[in-house]
């Protein structure tokens, strides 16, 4: 029995279906990310779990406790759900000290003074905030404010932590640091995380499993490795990592062609089940292409840029653009040269899938 359970959850805003019959099971102690472009429904889903949005269909349970249910017409307000939550814009209260921010949820629960002091102290220690306990959060940096928000969410020692793009207001170098801090806190306190982000590397680094969403519909739920290596469809492929898409036409003999005339070699033939699907997309990652005299086809270099550790090539093949990235130590062609390219890991998708 999974810990957090969403069954057929649907949410509509007017005529727009923000989340369409979503089924989800998250285990205790798991770090689960929801990934997708803005407006895909990931934040709405999180807000339904938190209780800020009611749902139009389905139900949500956590640890066997019913939180929202359309059929039973039941809705528990957010203040009764006992979650920890961290928001994108920190939402740290500027009129209260760091200490009072963290103590707030405990004071609301009317715990004894001794327990409030102990738990606040503990949360502040875990987030390295002990020194600034009496400061105004206004004087802290973005990272400091987000630590206060984390400490406040930790204070009640929640079973589930909801994180709504918690790192996207931070500087890039801080983001990486905070990722590990969140992970460490999870190890220490053992809560489950539901993490909303549009940053794929963040989701990859943190999560046990990732949900990729588009226009309110689940595209794939899988481990980070499988999301990257076995994308369920063209959207997931394009959303994770850099990508090339070449449109190709299947030929009657089972091969395919880039330009509609010359066929690609047998080694680069579309899989059988896609042969009758009309125009196809041949997808590759720029890092998984080699320059080779025994390449699948030839391409001409139109631009070559040195990016430091890697060199970025722009090529054209059959009138289509192709991007290749190579380590700077790998020798490569110059602008204007034509060379063979070998696709190390080709993926096939229906053109309009």
């Amino acid at each position, binding site marked *: 029995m999974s810990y957090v359970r969403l069954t057929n959850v649907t949410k509509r805003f007017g005529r727009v279906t923000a989340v369409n019959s979503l089924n989800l099971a998250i285990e205790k102690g798991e770090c689960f990310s929801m990934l997708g472009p803005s407006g895909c429904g990931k934040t709405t889903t999180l807000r339904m779990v938190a209780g800020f949005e009611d749902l139009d269909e389905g139900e949500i349970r956590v640890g066997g406790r019913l939180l929202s249910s359309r059929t039973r017409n039941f809705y528990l307000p957010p203040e009764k759900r006992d979650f920890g*939550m961290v*928001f*994108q814009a920190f*939402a*740290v209260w500027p*009129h209260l000290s760091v200490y009072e921010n963290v103590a707030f949820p405990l004071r609301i629960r009317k715990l004894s003074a001794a327990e409030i002091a102990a738990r606040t102290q503990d949360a502040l220690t875990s987030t390295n905030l002990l020194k600034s306990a009496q400061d105004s959060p*206004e004087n802290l940096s973005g990272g400091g404010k987000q630590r206060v*928000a984390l400490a406040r969410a930790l204070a009640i020692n929640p079973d589930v932590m909801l994180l709504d793009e918690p790192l996207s*207001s931070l500087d890039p170098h801080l983001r990486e640091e905070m990722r590990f801090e969140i992970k460490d806190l999870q190890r220490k306190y053992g809560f489950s995380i539901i993490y909303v982000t549009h940053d794929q590397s963040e989701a990859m680094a943190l999560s046990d499993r990732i949900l990729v969403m588009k226009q309110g519909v689940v595209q794939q739920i899988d481990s980070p490795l499988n999301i990257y290596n076995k994308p369920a469809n063209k959207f997931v492929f394009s959303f994770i990592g850099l990508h090339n898409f070449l449109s190709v036409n299947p030929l009657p003999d089972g091969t395919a062609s880039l330009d509609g005339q010359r066929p690609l070699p047998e080694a680069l033939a579309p899989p059988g089940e896609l042969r009758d699907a009309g125009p196809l997309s041949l997808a590759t990652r720029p890092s998984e292409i080699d320059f080779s005299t025994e390449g699948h086809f030839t391409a001409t270099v139109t631009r070559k840029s040195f990016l430091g550790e890697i060199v970025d090539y722009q090529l054209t093949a059959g009138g289509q653009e192709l991007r290749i990235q190579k380590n700077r130590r790998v020798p490569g062609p110059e602008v204007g040269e034509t060379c063979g390219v070998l696709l190390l890991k080709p993926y096939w998708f229906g053109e309009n899938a």
Partner: protein
Amino acid sequence: MSALAKKNDLDAAHFILGLSIAILVIVVAVPVLLIFLNAFWAEGKFNIVDVFAVLREPDTYQALLNSLIIASGTTLGSTVVGTFFAWLVTRTDLPFKKFMRGMFLVPFMLPSFIGALAWKMLLSPRAGYINRLFMDVFGLEAPVFNIYSYLGIVAVEVMYLFPFVFIQVCGALERMDPTLEEAARISGAGLFTITRRITIPLVLPSILSGALLIMLYSMAHFGTVAVLGIENGIYNIPTLIYERIHQSAGSFASIRTGTVLASVLVISAAFIIWLQGKVLGRGRYQIIAGKSFRPVELKLRALRWPMLGFCVLYIGVTIVLPTAVIFLVGGLKTYGLPFVSENLSLANYKFILFEYQVTKDAILNSVTLGLAAAFITMFAGVMISYVIVKMKVRGKGFLEFLGMLPFSVPGSVIALGVILAWSGKYGVNLYNTVWIILVAYIARYMAFSLKANSAALEQVHDSLMEAARACGAGMWQTLRDIVLPLVRPGMLAAFFLIFLPSLRELTVSIMLYAPTTRTIGVAIYTLNEDGETVFSAALAGIALLLIITGQTIINRVSAKYQG
């Protein structure tokens, strides 16, 4: 060549700076200085003893106290009313919230002395329509409510001033990041606790800043107290200044009392503005951020429609009723007749628009004065703001200080200062001409122009001007082709911010008018004083129509600029 160009620029910069300083010195600083000089300098030496003697006179002392009582009451009342309605239209599920939000801003348009006039017609102890209705129909012995009282004055001022707080608090509540409240909710706090411990503390700076604005306005407010207070001997600072100057025709003693009182006003105003800066500076929390979802909304449930009813009733009583009374009384043959069709006609309106010389002059004066003042102040304001916001020249600090002055000098002070400066004592005599009113209007409305123009100029990033210079444009060319087109909305806003209020101006013009230089405000006021109530009401009605038309045009224009 380039050294020469640089020298020319520098000369031009100094010329603009000098001109800006000169304008502010002549228009604002000299009158204020003369007031302080007259108050504290007697017979060639500094004299504080006399100042205290003046303040200890029972009349002056009482006026100071009255200003304080009325301003405190008005501030308190407006803050409560304004905050409550702001909360209602932003944080609850009140029906027709958007519409009601607009309705609560309507009192801004209504000049409070016209409101006071209407309430006098409704609630004066003997002749007020409501009081008479109750006495006649229900046989009451005494009037229901006497508007000629502290409570009456405060109530009327609250009705027309509370939007200052309302608009500030509405803005703060709307801009506030909703996750600040959501964070409290997920922490386990209910809506009541959130309102008390998170929302109110976070918007407190806005509430206080609006309250101080009302305090400032009410302390120096002439119209309402003049219409409702004098009858019962209630004077505040501006009405007492007017009374003294008006009755004694400029005797030394009355000027002395006037300047001492005016000094008190200037000092209190400066103190309030300083306090407001403190409050805003300390409380400028960064509470605006993030993607905005709808904020937590309190469900009024069973109270939803009764609350709407209450709002509609409030608007009806404070806006619709007084406006209707003004127009109805303006149509009566004689004041005091019942409102039945045989007593009502458009004759008064025709008379004051086409036949009566006094009102015809007043309308013409107000419109030309308003246009001239708006035009001059708009251009002066854009130049001064440009120096303050954009230019890097030495001596700017002094101009910044001068630029603060117009904000802290109330209308009655300006009028008195202008009388001291331009009555021939220093070579120029404008007294009893329309020019003295124009000079006073420019001084009075300079603050509006500076505010609108510097806001617009701050939006113009320096790099836009630097780009023009890099393209080879000189300083004047840059101003003409880049800066002026970009700040045009700000200039236009300044123009209307001056033109509309000047149509209904009373405080300054009442001190400066001569028989042929009455303005609309003065004509309404004096007609009412002379017992010509129906003509006064008819002219007030016409003034309201002018203001409403003007406001509608502004809303159209600004909507076009914004979207």
